[in-house]
């Protein structure tokens, strides 16, 4: 099947099998390997990307479902430098092994797009679909707060 979509601001078209997953299109065809597969079943959130600005899990989205949409991956987030969420994660030691980090950052970006000043509880709830085995989440929540403050100050 032929699909045409925009990936990280670049329009592209592909010939894919109907069963091809969006995450496999991104990783195997586009070599955008920052989007990770952690569970294949949409529970861990490592594969989170933005579709038309909204976070989705690329491991349970078919590539054909992304036809005519605009996909942003971790590689496309800070094309002219770093996104404030990326910086805050590094500053707050919100990552250890880094495997969950791209998905965690994409979910956080989605949250801050919808809610510029989230409470701790709102952050925890927004990140419930993203698992991290290393950090205990405390520093991740702190990083999202820091990023939110920086984005509000810079808006």
């Amino acid at each position: 099947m032929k699909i045409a979509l925009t990936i990280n601001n670049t329009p592209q078209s592909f010939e894919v099998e109907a069963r091809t997953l969006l995450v496999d299109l991104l990783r195997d065809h586009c070599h955008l390997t920052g989007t990770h597969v952690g569970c294949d079943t949409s529970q861990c959130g490592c594969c989170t990307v933005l579709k038309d600005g909204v976070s989705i899990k690329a491991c349970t989205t078919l590539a054909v479902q992304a036809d005519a949409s605009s996909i942003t991956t971790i590689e496309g987030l800070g094309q002219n430098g770093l996104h404030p969420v990326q910086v805050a994660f590094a500053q707050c030691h919100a990552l250890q092994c880094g495997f969950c980090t791209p998905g965690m950052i994409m979910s956080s970006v989605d949250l801050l797009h919808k809610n510029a000043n989230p409470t701790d509880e709102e952050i925890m709830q927004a990140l419930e679909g993203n698992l991290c085995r290393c950090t205990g989440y405390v520093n991740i929540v702190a990083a999202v707060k820091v990023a939110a403050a920086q984005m509000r100050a810079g808006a």
Partner: protein
Amino acid sequence: MASVPLDTRSFARQEDLHLITGQGQFTADQYYPNMLHMAVIRSVHAHAKILSMDLTAVKAAPGVKLVLNHQDLASQGAKDLPHAVTLTSITGEPQQINKMPVLAKDRVHFVGQPMAFVIAETALQAQDACELAQIEFEVLQACADVTTTLASDAPILHESMSSNVSCVFSSGDKASVEKAFAAAKHVSEVRVNSQRLIGFPMEPRAVVAKYDPSSQKTRIHTPSQGLLSIQGYLSQCTGLSPEQMEIVTQDVGGSFGLRTAAYSEHVGVVIGSRLLHQAVKWVGTRSEVFLSDWHGRALSLKGSMALDERGQILAIRFDDQVDVGAYNCYMSSFIGSRNLSITMGGVYNVPALYMQSTIVYTNTVPTSAYRGAGRPDIAYAIERLIDFAAHEHGFDPLEIRRKNFIAVKDFPYKTAIGTQYDACDFNLVLDRALALSDYAGFHARRARSVSKGQLRGIGLSTYLEASGAGNVQKDQVDGQFTADRILVISGVTGASGQGHETSFAKIVDNELGLSSQFVKYQAGVHGLALIGNGTGGSRTLYGAGSAIKNLCARIREQLALVLAARWSCDVTDVTYQGGGWCRQGQDATRMPTAEVLASLSDAELQGLSGMGEAQSGATYPNGCHVAEIEIDPQTGEVQILNYVCVDELGTVISPQLVQGQVHGGVIQGFGQAFCEQVVYDEQGQLLSGSLMDYALPRSGDMPVIRNETVEVHTSLNLLGAKGVGESGCTGSLPALANAVMSALRPFGIDRMDMPFTPMKIWTALQTAQAK
């Protein structure tokens, strides 16, 4: 959205930039041209004879290039998977060992056991082809748990044996313990289970192999915890010599003990690539990881404590059951013997200690190390036992601890089992934790909770563990300066999120005054004959880190010689302090090390290169954790209200990274205490085989973790540091459990096993109230 310009100076770690930008290089991110993909045919039965296995249709499926069964592997020189330790049993006989075959031969012993490898052009083709296998089984009765496997009428799992017991191990002085129990005023006994867990690094297990026919070497990309361990194990089971392998580990998405060893799939891709002369990749699905990554814990510990009339401990005895799963793989026997015994008295002065563990097979995934590997388990058992004994015999849980602490003046202290702790101050950590947690104010807070219809509990643990002694005698590192004056350090240990590079650079900064942008660390470099330990047992910082301190001392010696020649003075007149160099009594200002390096000739720079090494044994990190919780009796749900940890870790090199390690350890303890649990049914089918059934901690489960460190100097390594990687787990299991028991004890509930799920708590409360 305006982007932030690239400035990484405020980052916590040097490792972070590539990870936050999607530039990480994990094993699955490795792609080669014309790379093939492997899938695994796995057993669907827990215990069965393989009557026939017809793979004709698999071989004929679209895209399939190669299918391997156990005979194919044997003809290529493959051997069974290694085990790390053979114990001596209580009778003096060596432990019975049943190694796991890479692929099942005539029997399968657990659901998920690899039976054949299928290599095809695409991953989907390989997976599709697996479905076409025709396998005829004679299903046998399974033993899915320890009780079943020890029953007198249990089926025997391994045909060469007369029972399902691999070994009965013992340690300590049984006679003196029995004598102490006979004379005791009070005796308490508690059996606690440390249930089977999934280690669950976020990066699923993966391996890519690429054979180069011209050099006859195989490059192997795989997550690991350090070069030598995985190389040695791979060599044992693939039949290749270490020289025929080039192991490449870049980023590793968590390890927690699971990544030191070679698994069946490593052997499949290595042999497949050699036969096909093409790169072969295997990336486990999460379901496969549940079914085949070594499981952790699976220990049952029955502890007994003998006390005199004043609450002084006279003896502790443990009778443990250790479930190694279907085969002896890697560390399981070590965990169930040595690691359960060496600190079995905890922080207490116990005159007599004895333990026995019965190590058994079941039709389940083999077990091995998971964060702490027996040490959290024994600390958990001791700290639950002392709380239980205090309440059973009317002692205050705090006072009974203080009364029995090994006193500061008694260090170095040799336990009744023979372990020597060097230096600790248990009252120091306890006092600080009590202050931070406002322990004294608990009764008032409990009264407020009760007035709202909530149950409130507080639990404390005063834990001690032995961090890794290492299985290699020394840790060595190599240091080379590049033309840009960057110090590139190479070593054996590889990180999987710990931040080795950042901590090592901090050590160099402390020792040489060379800031982190001038220091790089690389793990597992070929062509360097280095020995050392991998990441494990929380020992990298003080193991490899001490070697780096030694390297820096050698570089300082060389620099002093160079400067003495340049300044035409005696080398003893060249002084280094606070990152700068000068002539004693002559120079008003010091020349920073970076400036000295910039002024060196190429030959002088070369002369600085060399090796650093250190011998570092086990250390004894300890601490006090305090958990305060509320239980809603209507639902059985537990909320963590406050969590305090005061950890005594010796010299802290990177406080932010230490905090991160403690947080991570504590939340994994939370996972075991409240949600994680591997469940098999009676037939040995894994019921908790996905994230829908196996609950991992999520954001918000522990909203606040307050942690501090205190330092008691240790002279056991050059840095004076103690291990931190696993202490969070070790401290949190008993603190959280004791908090739950504290909330439930008013209802007469004093025994309960992890995980403390709402269902379990609610049911216990209903039963207690009905009485």
